[in-house]
């Protein structure tokens, strides 16, 4: 049974090995992260000063759209699926994913989806330019012809995510080693189990809404066209019914990652394991009944407005529980600050700041001033960059020695951390101010009163971008020439993945381990 990988390109094309597929997902995600980052830098370069200097407003809109789509669907989601592929089987003592062939397929359709999406940049009329939220009728009647390719690309991404999610659920529910009861599973496994259910619930809704767009554009229906009896606001309801859980899809696995890292470097077990599980489940449940807080200004009836305001505020409770638990885990521990720990602590602090602005945004009357300004941009970048991106980075530093058998350079890792940490705050903190002062989002030019904050943001963005190039270098040099890692890697980490050699052999747990 135990045999090594095939040779050459065939290994990657035909592989059904969870480690190979995990690596491909991670590399793909990093490539998309750089591409989406380049789009972001075009935006920040144009916004460096008032006036139009670098790009045409229409191209600017294409950049904001493509940046959002590529980061959400190309960078963050595939990175988490890649981590799940690598870690879930190793954490539950399974030999591989439950559905290995589907695993291969769900990865390999992704490059096609993104090749198609990116190719729209070169089409007549340009790429999608209606924002990553693609509100109708701007994305239907008024869209460039490339919108059809965008719809098809979204369908493929959705299919990939659904297959990935089914695979993860099947693996977790069926392939745990004897003794690995549900309440013994590492939190990363728990959070991914819940995330996978969210994916299965909402990706079909996204597929539905883009199909309705397709019908409106090509087949004469009027789902989102008032003149034909439809309603543009219907689009927003369906989109955000997908979109809000989507936000949690991008953050729940991150909770799992830091819940693994903080205890290791605090040398103390995770505080409140059970409450962490329940909090994750409550957040997932609440994520289905808060979608219209993205639409407070569409003019919903008062009762609707109040309901969505209260439900949204409630999310602060389970989220708070998580933050308190992480804090209590660190309290009276014996702390060291290796790179993964630095990223995790930054995660907790900055994600909490993003949570605060989220709470402010939940207050519907105040949202009338915040909505669609840079305050919102600051908010969601504070939850997504230190949230999703930092946790993924922490995970890479934490498990890379296990994957590659080699240790990264701690000095380099810490340099990367500080550059990224400073870059991030310099970029996104001033956006709170420009937003409150009245700068709408998605504009290519602005009044001089926003000039100072924008210039600072742009400088920070280039710093942050540079830090990620350093990250690429660190990962490659670790794999090529890092010093040998021990099997345990860290002082006393918890979890089955640390019981196998470093680098993890091509096949692990062919005979299930005994979990006590």
């Amino acid at each position, binding site marked *: 049974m135990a045999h090594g990988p095939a040779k050459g390109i065939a290994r990657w094309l035909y592989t059904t090995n969870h480690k190979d597929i995990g690596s491909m997902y991670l590399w793909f995600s990093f490539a998309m992260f750089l591409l989406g980052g380049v789009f972001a830098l075009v935006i920040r370069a144009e916004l460096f000063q*008032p*006036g*139009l200097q670098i790009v045409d407003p*229409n191209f600017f*809109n294409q950049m904001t759209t493509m940046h959002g789509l590529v980061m959400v669907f190309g960078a963050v989601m595939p990175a988490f699926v890649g981590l799940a592929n690598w870690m879930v089987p190793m954490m539950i003592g399974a030999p591989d994913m439950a559905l290995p062939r589907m695993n291969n397929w769900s990865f390999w359709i992704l490059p096609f989806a993104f090749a198609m999406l990116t190719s729209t940049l070169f089409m*007549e*009329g340009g790429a999608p*330019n*209606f924002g990553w939220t693609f*509100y109708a*009728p*701007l994305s239907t009647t008024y869209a*460039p012809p490339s919108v059809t390719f965008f719809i098809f690309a979204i369908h493929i991404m959705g299919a990939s995510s659904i297959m990935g999610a089914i695979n993860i659920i099947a693996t977790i529910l069926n392939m745990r080693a004897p003794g690995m009861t549900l309440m013994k599973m590492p939190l990363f496994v728990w959070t991914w189990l819940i995330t996978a259910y969210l994916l299965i619930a909402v990706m079909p809704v996204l597929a539905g809404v883009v199909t309705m767009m397709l019908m409106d554009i090509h087949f004469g229906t009027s789902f989102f*066209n*008032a003149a034909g009896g439809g309603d*543009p606001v219907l689009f927003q309801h369906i989109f955000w019914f997908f979109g809000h859980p989507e936000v949690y899809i991008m953050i729940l696995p991150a909770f799992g990652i830091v819940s693994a890292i903080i205890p290791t470097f605090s040398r*103390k077990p995770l*505080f*409140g*394991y059970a409450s962490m599980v329940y909090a994750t489940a409550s957040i997932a449940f609440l994520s289905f009944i808060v979608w219209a807080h993205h639409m407070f*200004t*569409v*003019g919903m009836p008062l009762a609707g407005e109040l309901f969505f305001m209260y439900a949204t*505020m409630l999310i602060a409770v389970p989220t*708070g*529980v998580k933050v*308190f638990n992480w*804090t209590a*885990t*660190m*309290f*009276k*521990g*014996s702390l060291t600050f290796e790179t993964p720990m630095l990223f995790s602590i930054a995660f907790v602090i900055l994600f*909490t700041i993003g949570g*605060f602005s989220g*709470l*402010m945004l939940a*207050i*519907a*009357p*105040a949202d*009338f*001033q915040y*909505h669609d*300004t840079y305050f919102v941009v600051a908010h969601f970048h504070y939850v997504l960059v230190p949230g999703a991106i930092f946790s993924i980075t922490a995970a890479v530093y934490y498990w890379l020695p296990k994957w590659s058998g080699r240790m990264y350079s701690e000095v380099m890792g810490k340099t990367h951390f500080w550059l990224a940490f400073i870059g991030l705050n310099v970029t996104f903190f001033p956006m709170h*101010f420009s937003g409150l*002062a*009245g700068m*709408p*989002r*998605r*504009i290519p030019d*602005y009044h*001089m*009163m926003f*000039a100072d*904050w924008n*210039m*600072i943001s742009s400088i920070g963005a280039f710093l942050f971008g540079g830090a990620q190039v350093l990250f690429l270098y660190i990962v490659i040099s670790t794999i090529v020439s890092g010093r040998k890692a021990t099997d345990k890697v860290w002082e006393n980490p918890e979890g089955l993945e640390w019981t196998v050699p470093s680098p993890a052999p091509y096949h692990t747990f062919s005979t299930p381990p005994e979990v006590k």
Partner: protein
Amino acid sequence: MLNRAHGRSPWLLAPALLVGSYQSLAEEVERWKYNMPEGVTPVSQNIHGLHMEMFWWCVGIGVVVFSIMLFSMIFHRKSRGVKPAHFHESTTLEIIWTVIPVVILILMAIPATKSLINLYDTSEADMDVLITGYQWRWKYDYVDEDLSFFSSLSTPREQIEGLAPKGPHYLLEVDEPLVVPINKKIRFLITANDVIHAWWVPALGVKKDAIPGFIKESWTIINEPGVYRGQCAELCGRDHGFMPIVVDARTEEDYRAWLQEKQAAAAAIRELTSKTFTFDELYARGEEVYNRSCAACHQVNGEGIPGTFPSLKGVGVAVGPIDHHIDVVVNGVKGTAMQAFGPQLSEVDIAAVVTYERNAWGNNMGDMTQPIDIYNHKQGN
């Protein structure tokens, strides 16, 4: 201080701090707009209060949580020889830190609910203004006064392209502001003609989406005369960043005077419809209309943007039969970004812009059309 051609470098703040002169520091702080304006209406002031209250709650909670983390990071380090404790569970603690946030949330929700109920009360308005979003300008209809007009960006292109110094109200200025009286309850009826826009004036605390096919309501009572500026807040296509809103609030008297003047001007335009113009008059007026209303899509040079907005130079409708040309401009092309300009532009302006398009950029069709022809076309003759 706003008269800068470019944003002043943020690094200038540092010398200001070093010099330490209180005056320049205060000026700097004033210049760096960093918070929500209090505004000039009861609603905006109420929202500002809620915003600050929420902010201080968050600061308070943040200080507590981050202090504990910082304390651990400083005192519970391995390098200090600390041995880790082993506790990892406490139902009491979990209950405490579930219940306390719930209580805080209730304290937050009460004023927010009151404020929202007030915001939704659009009854008993003294006057109604119908606001319609277009790509990329606003139309204001004074419902009871038989008066309506468009309001578009008036910042010259040279300022945007950096060929001229930027004015003090760069991108926040329009040709025709919305003029309203103070101390009156004004109800806004908000809709759109093409895509979704959002009408937002921070100083009034009003932001409402303008949705094609639906009318949404909002209201305001302005306390002080003044000029208040805002922008479209919902991505609405290419020139989303270039459709500002200017509200000019005046005393009742001044408002009345302005109203009469406007109504007289509108009557004069109607008069012009029956007048016959020379080619040069039409061409000159047409160039102006074109640059204001059409160039955003078809471009100043008439060449459009391939794949999105057609070229009018030497091809298609502009060099075809004139009747069809008039029809396209008056009635638009259904289901495309080419809107019906019939209801938006006066007969004179349409005649002028059609004449212009047929003869500009080397089209040289040599023909022209009069306002009365446009009037007849609209009447279906």
